[in-house]
C-alpha cells in the first residue's frame, strides 16, 4: 500500500479562467522512503495538487472529483478537525518563500514549539526545539531559537521551516519549490539536507519544482504536469534521459546545458572599461548607529566590441549595483567608467544624455518594469521621442522592433497586462533596442521566466546580438545560463570580482575556491540532458 495515493483528482477553477479545471484527472502515488518530483511550468497545477493533499485549497478552488488516500484513510471526506490534526503531525509542508513563511513577530523557537503544542506534546518543546534546529545543521541552536526570523538569512529560515515540518516526524513531507528563492549554493545545501533526512527517517517526500536540474539532483520518480494534467510519469532516470511525451522533451531541451563550448577570442577595441569603481552604502548617522556595506569594490572589467560578458554571483554580491553604476542608476563614489575612452562618471546630467541612448538596460522583472498605463507602442517609442525622433517615425520603428522580438505588431495598442511574462520581457528588449544602443545591459533578464520561455528569450538575445553586433553585459545568478550565452564571465562575491576569464576556461578549470563552490552547486550537474 502506498503512503499517499491520489486518484483522478479534479479541482475546478473559478468560472472565467483560461481553462475549466486547475488540475484534471491527476493520479500519482508516493511510497514511504521515496521522493516524487512533480515538475511543471507556472500555472501547470503542481502547487494546487500539493495543497489539495494538505487540505489547504482556497475556497474558490473546490475539489470536483477523485480521491486522496493517505495511510489508507480518505482525506477528502475527513472532517476539518480531523484533517487539522493530521496536518503538522503526519503530513507536513514547506513553502517556496522562506522570507515570508515565518511569522515576523514570533521567535523562531516559539514557532517550532507551536507545532508540538497544538498536537499535544508541548511538554517536550524545551528539549526538542534545540534538537530539531541542530538536526537541520543550524549553528548554535539555542541562540537561533531565541531569534526572530528577520535576523536569519533565507537559507537559515528555510532550515527553520524544515525543522518545523519535521518536529513530529511526519510520514509525508510536501515541499513546494523549497529552493527556488534561494541562492545556488544554499539551494544545494537544502537539497542535500532534505535528501539526508528523508533517507534517515524513511519519509515519503512530494517535491514540487520547475527545475529539471533539481529533479536530477533529488528525485526517485518524476511526474510531469502540463496545463493541469500529468503527461508523463516514471522513474527519474527514465524520464530524464528517455522522455516520451513531446512536452517533457521540449522542457528538457530548453534546460540550459551546463557545458560551455569554447569560443573564438574577441580582440576588438574595448567599448566599456571599469577601473576602481567603488560604491559604499551607509546607513544611520546623526544619532543612530552607522552601518557600512561595501557594495562594489575591486571590480574592474572591460568589454570589447561585440562581446558578451557574464557577471555571475549570488544575491547581494554587488553584480546589479555594478551594472547600475554604468547607467548611473547608482552613483559610485570613486573610479572611472570609460565608454570608448570617455569617463562617464564625472559627467553632468546634460553631459550624460548623448550616452543614454547608446547604453540601454533590460530589467529582471517583466511585470514591474513596464508602465501598466501606457500602451506597448508608446512604451517602446518613448525613448526615441524624448531624444528628438518624430513620433510617427518612432512608432513605425516600434512596429519593426516588435517583429524583431517575434511579437505581433498588433501588440502596439495593447497594454502590458495583456501579455505573458515572456512576452513582456520581449517588449522590454524591444524598448531597449529602440534607442539603437551599442551596449546592452541585461540584469537577470530570464530569471523570472519559465524554462521554455527562458530558452526562447535567450535565443532571441543571441540572435539580436549577432544581427546588430551588440555588446552585452549579462547579469545572472544562473551559471547554466551564463555558460550558454557568454563569451567571458566574471564571478562576483561580496562586491569584488574574484575570477574572470573566457567562459569555457572558467567552467573547465576554475581557479578561485568560490567559483568552484558555485560550479559544484549547479543542480543536476551530474546529469547531461539527452540530445533530442
Amino acid at each position, binding site marked *: 500500500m502506498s503512503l499517499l495515493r491520489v486518484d483522478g483528482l479534479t479541482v475546478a477553477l473559478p468560472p472565467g479562467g483560461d481553462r475549466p479545471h486547475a488540475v484534471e484527472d491527476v493520479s500519482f502515488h508516493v511510497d514511504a522512503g521515496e521522493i516524487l518530483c512533480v515538475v511543471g511550468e507556472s500555472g501547470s497545477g503542481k502547487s494546487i495538487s500539493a495543497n489539495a493533499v494538505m487540505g489547504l485549497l482556497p475556497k474558490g478552488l473546490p475539489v470536483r472529483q477523485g480521491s486522496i488516500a493517505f495511510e489508507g484513510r480518505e482525506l477528502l471526506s475527513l472532517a476539518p478537525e480531523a484533517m487539522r490534526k493530521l*496536518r*503538522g503531525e503526519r503530513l507536513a509542508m514547506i513553502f517556496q518563500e522562506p522570507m515570508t513563511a515565518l511569522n515576523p513577530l514570533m521567535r523562531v523557537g516559539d514557532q517550532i514549539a507551536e507545532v508540538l503544542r*497544538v498536537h499535544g506534546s508541548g511538554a517536550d518543546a524545551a528539549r526538542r526545539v534545540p534538537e530539531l534546529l541542530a538536526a537541520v545543521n543550524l549553528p548554535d541552536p539555542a541562540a537561533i531559537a531565541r531569534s526572530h526570523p528577520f535576523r536569519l538569512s533565507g537559507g537559515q529560515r528555510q532550515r527553520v521551516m524544515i525543522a518545523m515540518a519535521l518536529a513530529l516526524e511526519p510520514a509525508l513531507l510536501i515541499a513546494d519549490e523549497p529552493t527556488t528563492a534561494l541562492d545556488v549554493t544554499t539551494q544545494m545545501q537544502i537539497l542535500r539536507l532534505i535528501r539526508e533526512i528523508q533517507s534517515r527517517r524513511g519519509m515519503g517526500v512530494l517535491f514540487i519544482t520547475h527545475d529539471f536540474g533539481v529533479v536530477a539532483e533529488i528525485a526517485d520518480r518524476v511526474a510531469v504536469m502540463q496545463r493541469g494534467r500529468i503527461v508523463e510519469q516514471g522513474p527519474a532516470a527514465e524520464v530524464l534521459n528517455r522522455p516520451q511525451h513531446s512536452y517533457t522533451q521540449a522542457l528538457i531541451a530548453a534546460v540550459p546545458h551546463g557545458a560551455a563550448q569554447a569560443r573564438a577570442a574577441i580582440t576588438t577595441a574595448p567599448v566599456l572599461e571599469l577601473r576602481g569603481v567603488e560604491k559604499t552604502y551607509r546607513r544611520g548617522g546623526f544619532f543612530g548607529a552607522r552601518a557600512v556595506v561595501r557594495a562594489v569594490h575591486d571590480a574592474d572589467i572591460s568589454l570589447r566590441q561585440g562581446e558578451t560578458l557574464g557577471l555571475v554571483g549570488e544575491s547581494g554580491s554587488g553584480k546589479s549595483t555594478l551594472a547600475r553604476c554604468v547607467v548611473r542608476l547608482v552613483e559610485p563614489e570613486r573610479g572611472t567608467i570609460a565608454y570608448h575612452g570617455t569617463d562617464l562618471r564625472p559627467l553632468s546630467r546634460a553631459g550624460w544624455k548623448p550616452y543614454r541612448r547608446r547604453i540601454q538596460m533590460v530589467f529582471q522583472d517583466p511585470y514591474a518594469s513596464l508602465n501598466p498605463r501606457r500602451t506597448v507602442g508608446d512604451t517602446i517609442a518613448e525613448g526615441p521621442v524624448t531624444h528628438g525622433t518624430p513620433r510617427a517615425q518612432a512608432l513605425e520603428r516600434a512596429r519593426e522592433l516588435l517583429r524583431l522580438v517575434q511579437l505581433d505588431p498588433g501588440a502596439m495598442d495593447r497594454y502590458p497586462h495583456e501579455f505573458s511574462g515572456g512576452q513582456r520581457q520581449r517588449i522590454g528588449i524591444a524598448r531597449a533596442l529602440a534607442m539603437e544602443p551599442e551596449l546592452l545591459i541585461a540584469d537577470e533578464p530570464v530569471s523570472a521566466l519559465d524554462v521554455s520561455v527562458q530558452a526562447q528569450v535567450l535565443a532571441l538575445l543571441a540572435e539580436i546580438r549577432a544581427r546588430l553586433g551588440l555588446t552585452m553585459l549579462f547579469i545572472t545568478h544562473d551559471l547554466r545560463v551564463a555558460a550558454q550565452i557568454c563569451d567571458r564571465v566574471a564571478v562576483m562575491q561580496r562586491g569584488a570580482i574574484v575570477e574572470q576569464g573566457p567562459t569555457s576556461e572558467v567552467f573547465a578549470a576554475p581557479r578561485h575556491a568560490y567559483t568552484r563552490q558555485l560550479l559544484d552547486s549547479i543542480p543536476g550537474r551530474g546529469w547531461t540532458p539527452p540530445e533530442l
Partner: protein
Amino acid sequence: MEASKLPGFLLRRGVKAAIVVLAIVICNFLLVHAAPGDPASVIAGQSGAADAVFLEQLRRQFGLDQPLYVQLWIYLKSVLSLDLGFSHRQQAPVAQLVLERLPATLLLTGAAFAFALAAGVTLGALAAQRVGRWADSVITVIALTFYATPLFWVGLMLVLVFSVWLEWLPSFGMSSVGVEMHGLEVVWDVAQHLLLPALTLGLFYLAVYARLTRATMLEVADQDFVKTARAKGVPEGRILRAHVLRNALLPVITFAGIQAGQLLGGSILVETVFAWPGIGRLAFEALLARDYPVLLGVFFCTSVMVVLFNLLTDMLYAIIDPRVEVAG
C-alpha cells in the same frame, strides 16, 4: 528591542522631543499673536472705558507694547523655567489653572481612547472573521455611521436619549453637585458622568479602528506565514489570535498613536457640550477672553502630551515588532 538599548534610546528621543516642543511653543506664540484683537482691547471693552490712554496703560502693564521678538524671548525664558505665566483675567498662575483641569481631560480622553481601541479592534476582528456575511455588513454600517456623524450631534442625541428620555445618566458636569459622598460612591458617580462624553468622543475613533483592523486583518490573513500555521495544524482560533491579529495590530498601533493627540483636540467640543471641567473648555474660554497666557499654557500642555504619546507609541511598537530598530 533589547533592554540594554533602552536608556540611550530614551535619551536621544528625549532631546528630539524637547526640540520639537520648543518649536511648537514658538509657533503657538506667533500664531496667537497673529490673531486679531489683543487682551488689552478685550479688557478695556468689558470694563466699558475704552479710551486710548487706558488701552496704552494696559498694554504697557502686560508688556504688549514691546516688539514681538522681545515678548517671545521673555515668554521662552519663562517657559524654560516652567513658569507658564499669570492669568490676569482669572487672577491665578496659568500652571495652576492648567494642572487643575488636566486630570479631568486625561480621564475623559483616556477612557474614550481605551473604549475606542478595545471596541474598535474587537469589532474589526469580528468583521474580518465573518467577511462578506451579514455580521460584517452590520459592523461596516455601524462603523460608517459613526464615522460620518458629527461629534456634537452624537453628543446631543446621547443626552436626549439617556438623560432626558430614559433619565439613566447625568447629562453634564463631572460629579453630582451638593451631595455628600465617600470612597466608591465618588468613583461610581464620576463613572456615570463620564460615560456619555467618553462615548461621544470615542465613537468616531471606534469606527476608524474597526475599519482599519478589518482591512489589515484581511491583508495579513493572505500572507504566507498564516498558511504555514495552517499547514502546522494550528487551530483556526489560535491562528486568528496568535498570527493574524498580532500582525494586524501593528498599523492600528501606529494610527492610534497619532490619534491619541487628536483626541485631546477633539475633547474641546465634547467638554463644551457636556460641561466637562477639562483643559479643552479652559482653552475655549481663554480664547473668547483673549487670555493669551492661559491659551498658550494649554497649547504647551497639549503639545507635551502629544509628544509623550508619540514617544510611548514608538516604544510600544519597538517592543511588539522586533524588526523595528529603535533608532533615535
